[in-house]
């Protein structure tokens, strides 16, 4: 149906992206009238389904348009917003954003299913969740730095309420820590953006926030050196760059299930995406100047996250540290500055998005049944809740990079790309990062062994509730893409590859 509209009416075609902001906002408005849990979740589900439909439609529309149009960004639209600053509402997508939009739509819908029984303030919960997703959608379609920054902050701030109101454990502390660190990072980012903006006229043109315009400008070397670290760190904090990752384990552990999913699955991807699209694309010489420093941090983060995950006993902490490790790999691959590694980085973003969201969903289900997340108190779950446990094993195998799942495709690309650098520094860094794979296998299999295998540790576990239909739906929404990317990565890889091309030319 969407394809039909897309083909027939020009106006709808041009607005195919704005809908990603309008539909969630309409969902929020509809939610305002929801009276109870049932109406709230139904509204949220319908909104989520429409968004998923739009995302799938966008993939087809993208391929169709790409065949006839070889611009960097497609479906462009540009409206002047603040004319004195040359701020535009300017949107467009390439293959990378399309893939990430699809990821977002899937995770949001799965999140709604997982929160089917959200009894406390359901309306407010779904509203915050959907405002968050609006920010994420807006971020992925923006090609104007100002608009992008606005959506970035819109995506972050609902986290405070989501963790603070519906969280568990030290929720107030975690929520405050997460919000302050991310907003602090975005404040640093603001300086970086202003720096880019005021140097965007270096070739004699007007100052602009438009990414595509700025990419054509030769920003002076000194400015690039100064503003690259600000922009990079500003984005990388939300991508859990090593010394700034501390918000992530606490935040994930305290957040309610759907929020952990959305946060680890989608929100943390803003970091890698922003680094790629803004910091590295607009400040290529700054990137070359600083990359050694951030490679060290990223490689250390990869190995540090993996080792930290070994030591944890709380399931959510294990998964949070594993996210630090996996997303460190994304930043690491981006800094390797070659096509294969970049392809791997984007695939890793997607794969990690599905995988970690699935993990958090499963952890939420286990926790709601057994009321503990401590793996030493769990055991033999495979016998009592087979569906959840089997899925956990699959997610774990995907996480440690077994061929046939998405993780393998991504990591393979990253390491092949990274190893193409001949000199010693890159080789050593790559070897260190690769070794994290082994550690990953250790912590994944350790959890599987302790928690799922062996005798049932607790009598009460024998009468656990079977998995429900909405939980199954949520799981399948995550599981199918993991296998899908693993088995048939080519269409995705192709979509990403051709979008990377202009960036490669810009940076190298």
């Amino acid at each position, binding site marked *: 149906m969407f394809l039909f509209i897309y083909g027939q009416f020009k106006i709808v075609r041009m607005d195919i992206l704005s809908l990603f902001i309008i539909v969630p906002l309409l969902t929020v408005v509809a939610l305002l009238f929801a009276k109870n849990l049932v109406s709230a979740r139904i509204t949220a589900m319908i909104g989520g389904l429409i968004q998923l439909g739009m995302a799938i439609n966008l993939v087809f529309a993208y391929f169709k348009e790409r065949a006839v149009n070889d611009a960097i960004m497609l479906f462009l639209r540009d409206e002047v917003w*603040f004319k004195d600053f040359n701020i535009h509402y300017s949107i467009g997508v390439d293959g990378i954003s399309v893939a990430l939009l699809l990821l977002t739509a899937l995770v949001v819908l799965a999140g709604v299913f997982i929160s089917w029984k959200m009894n406390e303030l359901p309306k407010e919960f779904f509203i915050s969740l959907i405002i968050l997703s609006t920010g994420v959608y807006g971020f992925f379609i923006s090609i104007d730095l100002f608009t992008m920054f606005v959506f970035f902050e819109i995506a972050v701030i609902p986290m405070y309420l989501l963790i*603070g109101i519906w969280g568990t454990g030290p929720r107030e502390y975690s929520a405050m820590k997460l919000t302050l660190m991310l907003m602090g990072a975005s404040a640093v980012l603001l*300086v970086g953006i202003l720096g880019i903006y005021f140097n965007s006229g270096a070739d004699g043109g007007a100052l602009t926030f438009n990414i595509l315009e700025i990419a054509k400008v030769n920003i002076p070397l000194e400015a690039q050196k100064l503003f690259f670290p600000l922009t990079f760190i500003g984005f990388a904090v939300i991508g859990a760059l090593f010394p700034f990752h501390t918000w992530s384990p606490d935040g994930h552990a305290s957040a309610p299930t759907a929020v952990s999913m959305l946060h680890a699955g989608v929100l943390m991807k803003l970091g890698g995406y922003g680094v790629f699209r803004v910091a590295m694309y607009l400040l290529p010489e700054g990137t070359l100047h600083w990359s050694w420093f951030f490679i060290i941090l990223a490689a250390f983060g990869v190995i540090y996250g993996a080792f930290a995950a070994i030591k944890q006993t709380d399931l959510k902490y294990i998964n949070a540290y594993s996210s630090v490790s996996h997303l460190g790999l994304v930043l690491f691959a981006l800094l390797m500055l070659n096509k294969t590694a970049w392809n791997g980085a984007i695939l890793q973003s997607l794969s990690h998005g599905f995988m970690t969201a699935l993990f958090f969903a499963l952890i939420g289900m286990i926790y709601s049944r057994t009321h503990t997340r401590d793996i030493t108190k769990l055991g033999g779950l495979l016998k009592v809740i087979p569906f959840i446990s089997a899925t956990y094993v699959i997610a774990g195998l995907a996480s440690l990079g077994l061929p046939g799942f998405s993780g393998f495709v991504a990591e393979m690309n990253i390491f092949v790309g990274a190893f193409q650098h001949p000199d010693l520094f890159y080789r050593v860094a790559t070897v260190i990062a690769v070794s994290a794979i082994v550690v990953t296998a250790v912590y994944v299999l350790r959890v599987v062994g302790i928690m799922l295998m062996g005798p049932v540790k607790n009598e009460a576990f024998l009468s656990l509730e079977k998995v429900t239909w909405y939980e199954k739906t949520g799981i399948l929404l995550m599981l199918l893409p993991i296998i899908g990317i693993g088995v048939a990565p080519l269409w995705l890889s192709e979509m990403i590859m051709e979008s990377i091309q202009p960036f490669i030319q810009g940076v190298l």
Partner: protein
Amino acid sequence: MDVYNFLVLRQEISLLILILLLIILEIFIPHNKKSAVVHVAILLFGIHTLAGFYPMEDASLFGGMFRTNPLIHFFKNILNLGVLVVLLQAADWINEKILIQNKGTEFFVLVFSSLLGLYFMISSGDFLMFYLGLELSTLPLAALAAYETSKIKSSEAGIKLILSSALASGISLFGISLLYATSGSIYFEVITDAIMATNLTTLGMILFFAGLGFKISLVPFHFWTADVYEGAPISIASYLSVISKGAAVFILMILLFTVLKPLMHLWENMVYALAILTMFTGNLFALRQQNMKRFLAFSSIAQAGFILLGLITGTQLGTATIVYFVLIYIFSNLAAFGVVQAISLQTGKENMKDYEGLYRTNPKLSLVMMLGLFSLAGIPPVAGFFGKFFLFTAAASNGYYFLVFLAVVNVTISLYYYLLVIRAMFLRTSDTAIPYFRNKNYMRLGLIITVIGILLLGMYSPIYDYIYSLSSTFN
């Protein structure tokens, strides 16, 4: 000079007539119908505000003592809107607490007189008019701060305000006399040409700065702020924090950007240092405040520090962003003060702890508060974000990246304490939460106007474009 020239003064004359009408009305209103004063005063002031939007051209009177132009006129309209909201939010308090003491008319007369002083101050074309306006705006405020005579703290606030403002205006006057001594004139236009960067001029400028710094509550002239806000009636605290501060920022901006422009290399450094001091002091002191009024007092000090980032530029961009920011700040701060006022009037509670669980009992009020605080903290998509972003852009356009960096550090610090209030209202639940109550109509209207302002001023870009087009006047 014929009588039409006086139309240049029409805002002032209209307000003066309003004041006189209220005084006369006081005689004729029977004793048992005193509440009519509130309705009449608000209605008349509303008409005055609306009439103010009739456009005004560049003009000056009395040989240049009084001048006006579209930007000044626009700023008077902003002040009018702010005062209107303050009055709407104060109406119930006057009805319940002040009319019994038979002081209703005086309240309005004093507020309007202070506003009249601000009009003259921002329209001044020489230092004499400026000083008269400054005094006229400050003296009624001291009386108003001490308005709740039953409370000791209120009297204390009045005394503190009058003593420290007397000192500040004395210092300022001394500064003016030094400027007069070195340039030979008190007319702004003459001074601009005659001024030279001598030691005496510099001293005069710094001393003069102190007087306005006091009104804006810049650090180190801020010591009165928290005590006065805490003791004074809430509507007066909100008047002090938005109207009087906004007008002082505006006139300071005009003076720095035109009269003292030749000394820019000097005051640049001063503003730089004061901005850093004010932001950090305001923010760090706000962290531990428990009383909502003191909390907002320090928050408003910190906001003044952010305004200085626009002041340092001396450009049209700076003018536009400052006026825009002040406009947004008025609405954001009044939203926060309005909620504090509503709760204080209803329950007498003013501490952050009392706000715990407010969302579960009074969701709408909490949402207004949240919008106001988000706007103050500068979180999109509400207006405060745009105001702050543009101020920082203005500072960065002059190359002050390090100052912008310090400012964004402060934004993060400020976010912490704004979130503390959000935490109390939304995250916590309490058995002793403030029970549900319904606001009266005036208060609701006052809050609704602020919410519309907060939502509209940022995202609706023509407002900024309009302000930018007006601000070419001074550069």
